[in-house]
């Protein structure tokens, strides 16, 4: 809260049209893989997974 420095570490998506270049993007085949990849990445990066509700999960360090 307050003085945190937030940073987007990666984006996991099933829809290639939703993300632009310049970000770390992981593509997933389906919703199950999307969740699984995001969960594994979150553990590795100690990041929070947020759902943008457009087939994209974004990993943010808070």
């Amino acid at each position, binding site marked *: 809260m307050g003085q945190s420095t937030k940073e987007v570490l990666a984006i996991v998506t099933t829809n290639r049209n939703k993300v632009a270049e310049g970000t770390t993007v992981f593509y997933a085949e389906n919703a199950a893989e999307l969740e699984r990849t*995001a969960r594994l990445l*979150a553990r590795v990066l*100690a*990041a929070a*997974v947020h*759902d943008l*509700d457009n087939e994209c*999960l974004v990993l943010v360090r808070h």
Partner: protein
Amino acid sequence: MEYLFTLVLGALAGFLARWYMLRRDYRQYPSYPQGWAIHLFLGFIGGLIGAVIVPALMERDFSAVSFLLLAATQFREVRNMERNTLTAMEATEMVGRGSGYIEGIARVFEARNYLAIWVALAAAVVSQLFDPNRPLQIVGGFIVALCLAWVLNRLMQGSVIGEIADVELAELGFDGPVLQVNGVHVMNVGLSDARRTWIEKGLGAVVRPKGPDAKATLGNIGQMQAIAHDVISMIGLYMDVGEQEFVPVVRRERESGSLVMAIVPSEPDADAFLEAIRRVPVLEGAIRKPLSSRAGRMLD
């Protein structure tokens, strides 16, 4: 040597007053035994300074008095020491205290040394008044020291959240990925199993301020962080290192100025959770009194 008895009595009174003001509760701060050793020694020095003022004044040695006052300013270092220690430990906390809480704690520790000086001074004055009647010096000195320490300690005690706000249980729910408490957006939880955990094990509460002053006080970010930190130190947290999705959150409801809190405790006991929130101290640095201003009263 004629002042030795007064000096010892005063220093002892100051030391005991500092001891009386050290409290061990759920926060375990100052830590025991090393933290205690530091503060008891500082209390003893404070007591000695307070006690030595009396003989210095009676001998009309005013340069000694000014030197003693100079020595007293060294206690400002206590605040820095506490601030540095707590800030360094912040990274080791699952949920940090926040700078507002740290400043509050540091200030309390500095202030208590000054209280020890006051108590020592009072005991020394009484002792010197009754000189050379030793039993009367001891009894009088300690009665005055005890009363003063008790009164000062009472005056220094701040209020707790339960006194300025009503704390009630609130419904947790999801709007898509967004965790909500009482309809207030709290956090975006991306993973479906984490959302399930929140629904199964999570608890929510709403903290309703009892007036405009309380509302302004609760709006302080340091106070919100202090609530999160203190509640988990009382009831525990269901979270591992790096599991950001279960970090307890405190947010503000724009409309009413109420706070909402969402937490996954290690034991889902609603009564313990609400009691923990009520027991959180109100930070001295967070207190605002808009009602003391004309503009503030016009809004009320």
